[in-house]
């Protein structure tokens, strides 16, 4: 049986926290460059150029690309045949976050009580979603999530009769209302189906998919393309200052639904669409 040590998980997580915040993923950079060719607003072009330059500085100097280094959200797949030695997986992840945010000069943005609001000082606790899978690997994905874009997200329980039109309407309305707040150009994660919390989780998971990769179901892929086009007609543009690049991508995930329900969730990500994965 494969064994992974607690300390190794701590160190790997610490590294992931830092890398995710310093190194913008290639697919996002590509999307900046693609949209630079299409953007109609001169101010919008200038903003996209700044974002490219910012990513270069962050990479070169190992500085966070955004000062909001986020809530540390983890998706972890644990192989059923794997043994973790020396402590609990969740504890190891939290210790890794503590170490990574401290040693990596990342901002600590978590308050320990939602109403009393005193900073925990080490960016813990992390939010950890664990699933059991076949095999003996440990796959850890971190997706640090900024507050500004998270605040513009939402979920709605539609009537099944509202169908795909109702879904489109809610997605467009959410992006429209968010305007300049979530730091456009944004990535729009959409979850359709399941229960209320399942739809929200699907929306967050949708943000992990590369921006240039469409859903495997052709009808959902078409819906992603249609929504992206509609969103970019809103005119919000880079930073909300007007323009044609409001979103870089719309990623949708779906799940079976109850006969009475059509939940839809929209999780907005800023252009600092960060995530990193490692398999141990």
């Amino acid at each position, binding site marked *: 049986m494969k064994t992974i040590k607690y300390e190794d998980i701590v160190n790997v997580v610490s590294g992931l926290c830092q890398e995710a915040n310093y190194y913008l993923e290639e697919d996002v950079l590509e999307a900046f460059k693609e949209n630079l060719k299409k953007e109609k607003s001169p101010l919008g072009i200038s903003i996209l150029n700044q974002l490219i330059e910012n990513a270069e500085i962050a990479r070169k100097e190992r500085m*966070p690309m955004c000062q909001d280094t986020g809530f540390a959200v983890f998706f972890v797949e644990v192989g059923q045949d794997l043994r973790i030695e020396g402590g609990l997986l969740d504890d190891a992840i939290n210790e890794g976050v503590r170490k990574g945010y401290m040693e990596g000069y990342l901002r600590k943005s978590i308050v320990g009580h939602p109403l009393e609001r005193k900073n925990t000082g080490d960016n813990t606790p992390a939010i950890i979603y664990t699933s059991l899978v076949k095999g003996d690997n440990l796959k850890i994905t971190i997706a640090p999530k900024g507050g500004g874009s998270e605040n513009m997200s939402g979920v709605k329980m539609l009537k099944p009769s509202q169908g795909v039109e109702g879904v489109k309407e809610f997605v467009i309305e959410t992006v429209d209302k968010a305007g300049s707040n979530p730091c456009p150009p944004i990535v729009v994660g959409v979850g359709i189906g399941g229960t209320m919390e399942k739809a929200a989780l699907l929306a967050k998971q949708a943000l992990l998919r590369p921006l240039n990769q469409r859903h495997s179901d052709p009808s959902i892929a078409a819906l992603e393309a249609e929504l992206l086009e509609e969103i970019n007609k809103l005119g919000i543009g880079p930073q909300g200052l007007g323009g044609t690049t409001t979103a870089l991508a719309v990623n949708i995930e779906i799940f079976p639904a109850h006969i009475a329900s059509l939940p839809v969730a929209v999780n907005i990500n800023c252009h600092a669409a960060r995530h990193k994965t490692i398999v141990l």
Partner: protein
Amino acid sequence: MAEYTVSTPLTDEIVDKLRAGDTVFLNGVILTGRDAAHKKLFELIREGKELPVDIRGQIIYYVGPSPARPGQVIGSAGPTTSGRMDAYTPALLDLGLKGMIGKGLRSKEVLDSIKKNKAVYFAATGGAAALISKRITKCEVIAYPELGPEAIYRLEVENFPVIVVNDAHGGDLYQEGRQQYQVK
């Protein structure tokens, strides 16, 4: 859309000529403050007490920087969402605050107060935090050190790039920009 280089503090004369869409490069001193510091300032104003900083003619930058590495002036320092400060802003503008730097929409009360008090709301590029940090040449905490990244800092800036979103004459780039590029 004009381009200006402006030294702080701001005067009525400078604010008067700025229009939504203008690019401005700021030089001199700006203050920082976000949620927790605004709440504290607002409570002092309500109690009729003196503020720990003189805000007359000043610009407040809504930012909570990441920690500086040894040798750095400041860590990454992009703007945070301004709307969370809306409840506290009119009281500060009434006391003579002249400018704000942030990102995102402001409330009607803030927009009215900007006009009434001849002030200006600038946007910095959200998420361009590493880039922006290069324009900050000095950084020191001047109030509420216990708030960490939420403390009030005094920043010295050189050619700090911002865009006028809301001017003293009612101009609003968030509205005008959208209308210009909206496809109906």
